[in-house]
């Protein structure tokens, strides 16, 4: 084919396609409207309500035995005359964010889904894709009561509730999970300070042939400096976690600073550098992805721990042999009162395109009643679980519902009876708002819209320099210098200024 003909054919194809496309667009709009009108008239009718099926999207794999539980949930919804049934779809984590964005922009109708500031929530709010929930929450007492007032208050976006905050703990303490048997083997007392920890890690390094000191997944290592600092878990000069990677807020001079430049955890970066050099941190840390498995296999003496109610549970199977070989070390544990923004990381959101928002909120309210909550989150009583007291339960089947997508309510949470005592202690500690200090930046959620070019440019620095610095792979002085230079050359200051401006606005608005 000659070039001319080739172009001719291409043009013809493009023309034809654009014509057909125009046709498609028109059709789908009409189709959408027709579909919705019946459901509107349905919801107006009174008891016994007709059932409207609500479509939900959540990330992850469908839990084993989910169909049976969902059937039971829908039966109970019907029996309680809520007027709704749930159609829950799980999308693989790997493309959940993208799939949701595409569904939203394609105008697909669904009634609830999981979103978060670390997914696409800020963009969705900016584009008016999410329903405001303030009025609807106020009308639903069970839902309102099941979540502490701090959680409602400090998880607003521009002063409005844009999603139901899902969480159990009110803030996080960081620490390490330690092999108690090894500590006792070397006659060391219970770990209280970072020096105690250091002694333990070096003792393992010097004496054990098959057990190495410490393992953490490479990508998690940005939390290491929070653990290995004398200031750990306290509310001192800096708020380290403000919801924007790599940055912190200094309460002393009211300035946004880089975490790497923070004087408060400078000691931690020195420690990390030293530990990496001395082989306390594995040479493999930059690409480590199997920390959990390796620790379970007994190849390491310590691993990362945080009080989120998930981290500790991962290892409860290690105690199935009846031993108590694990313990939790939380630096400054006895005086811990860390900053928290009472911020949650997951939100149940309701798209504006849904015609059934009120009904979907009714379901959320219904799920805030203990027996309904338990049915969805733990499964069918007697078959999947049985209660152990008020706040614990025994697992009978392999049903594990990801509560963080729908059902997590701090006041209703039960912990598995397999949870190790130390873990339960710290988990219970963290569910109580009174154990935390309100962060001065609470209520701040970064909206990068104004500086998105610069933000996109500095985001890769997290993986390429900030992580290696936190892993000890880049020595502290060198890593900090590189970050300063790169931040300066990529317009990081503009991002910092924007964060500063938004935090100032939040603080002055209080």
């Amino acid at each position, binding site marked *: 084919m000659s070039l001319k003909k080739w172009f001719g054919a291409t043009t013809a194809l*493009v023309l034809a396609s*654009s014509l057909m496309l125009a046709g498609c667009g028109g059709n789908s709009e009409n189709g959408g409207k027709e579909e919705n009108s019946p459901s509107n008239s349905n919801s107006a009718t009174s008891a016994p309500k007709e059932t409207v099926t609500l479509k939900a999207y959540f990330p992850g794999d469908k839990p084993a035995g989910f169909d049976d539980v969902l059937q039971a949930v829908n039966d109970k919804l019907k029996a309680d005359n809520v007027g709704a049934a749930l159609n829950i779809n799980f999308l693989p984590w790997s493309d959940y964010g993208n799939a949701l964005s595409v569904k939203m*922009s394609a105008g697909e109708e669904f009634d609830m889904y999981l979103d978060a500031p670390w997914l696409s929530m800020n963009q969705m709010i*900016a584009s008016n*894709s999410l329903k405001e929930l303030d009025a609807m929450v106020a009308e639903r007492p069970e839902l309102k009561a099941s979540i502490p007032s701090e959680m409602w208050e400090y998880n607003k976006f521009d002063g409005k509730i844009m999603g139901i905050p899902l969480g159990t703990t009110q803030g996080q303490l960081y620490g390490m999970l330690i092999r108690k048997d090894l500590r006792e083997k070397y006659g060391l007392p219970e770990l209280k300070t970072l020096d105690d920890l250091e002694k333990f890690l070096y003792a393992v390094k010097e004496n054990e042939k098959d057990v190495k000191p410490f393992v953490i997944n490479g990508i998690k290592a940005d939390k290491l400096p929070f653990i290995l600092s004398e200031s750990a878990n306290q509310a001192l000069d800096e708020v380290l976690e403000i919801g924007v990677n790599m940055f912190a807020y200094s309460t002393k001079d009211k300035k946004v600073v880089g975490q790497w430049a923070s004087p408060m955890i400078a000691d931690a970066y020195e420690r990390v550098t030293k530990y990496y050099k001395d082989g306390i941190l594995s040479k493999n840390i930059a*690409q480590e992805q199997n920390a959990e498995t390796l620790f379970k296999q007994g190849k390491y003496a310590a691993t990362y721990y945080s009080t989120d109610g998930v981290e500790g549970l991962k290892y409860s199977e290690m105690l199935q042999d009846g031993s108590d070989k694990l313990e939790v070390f939380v630096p400054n544990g006895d005086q811990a009162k860390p900053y928290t923004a009472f911020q949650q990381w997951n939100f149940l959101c309701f798209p504006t395109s849904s015609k059934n928002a009120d009904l979907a909120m009714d379901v959320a309210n219904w799920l805030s009643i203990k027996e309904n909550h338990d049915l969805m989150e733990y499964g069918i009583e007697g078959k999947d679980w049985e209660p152990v007291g008020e706040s614990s339960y025994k697992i009978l089947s392999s049903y594990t519902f990801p509560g963080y997508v729908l059902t997590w309510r701090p006041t209703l949470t039960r912990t598995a009876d397999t949870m190790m005592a130390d873990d339960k202690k710290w988990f219970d500690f963290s569910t109580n708002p009174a154990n935390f200090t309100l962060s001065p930046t609470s209520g701040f959620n970064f909206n990068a819209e104004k500086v998105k070019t610069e933000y*996109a*440019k500095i985001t890769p620095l997290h993986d390429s320099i900030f992580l*290696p610095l936190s892993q000890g792979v880049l020595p502290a002085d060198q890593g900090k210098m590189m970050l300063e230079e790169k931040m300066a050359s*990529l317009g990081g200051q503009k991002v910092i200024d924007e964060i500063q401006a938004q935090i100032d606005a939040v603080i002055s608005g209080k």
Partner: protein
Amino acid sequence: MQYQLNARRGSKLKHIIRNPFLYAMAVPGLLFFLVFSYFPIYGIMIAFKDYNYAKGITGSDWVGFRNFNYFFTSDDFWVILRNTLTLNVLFIVFTTAAAVLIALMFNEIRNVYFKRISQSFIFLPYFMSWIVVGMIVQSLFGGEEPMINAWLQNVGLEPVNWMFESKLWPYILTVIRVWQGAGYLSIIFLAAITGITEDLYEAARIDGASKLQIVLRITLPLLVPTIMIMTLLAVGKIFNGDFAMIYAIIGDNSLLYPTTDVIDTFVFRSMRQLHDFGMSSAVGLFQSVMGLVFVIAANWVTRRVSKESALF
């Protein structure tokens, strides 16, 4: 030849009427490209818009070339561009060379069963998910005691700190790529070789040509058009880093970024927090346009050298 004569003699319509089945066979392929390649073209405008889910594609505001800013002014722009091109050139050259060699060798195998079995085996890696390949690579080169190092030490060589040596990775990736892709390409070449008329070989044998001479003087020259077409198609994607491959193998290991970070992985990391359709579309458009430029240029060069081998 027949086609050209027909085309010159009568109208296109006549040609279609005369060969209805030939054209009918092309319909599924045309439909595929129409639906998956030509329809979505209108989405290009996202690259020039401040794309907003609620306003939709046509309703979003135009922002000119603002979406292109971030990528072109990124610090690592040249490094990433260089990596993308270097890796792809390495991939194209070595995969093609290996595939031609494999195809020529297959062509010499006379035992049908051995030929079929070995074809299947060499084709197999093509169907392997990059995630699986990534895990294999991880166990060979990763961990505290990489398997490769154990082998090296067994034969008395010094162990290598693979995950720290970014210089080695373009070569490692090339080897993996050849292992994965050469088999597939060789089957295409083998099909082309099979299409070469037997008369030529017979004539050569009568004239007393050796096996090597036959390969060099007949098989290889007649294979060149196919090689050129496959290469031109690959050149069209020269600005597209193979995200699935690179990300599955390199992952988040920042120590290897200096030589393995390609446009696609870089954009992925930049957009992890932002999820900005406009900026990612801008980069995609840049890759496509550069790919088009390269294809036209490569085709122009090909035409100069040998007219029959060119795509258009």
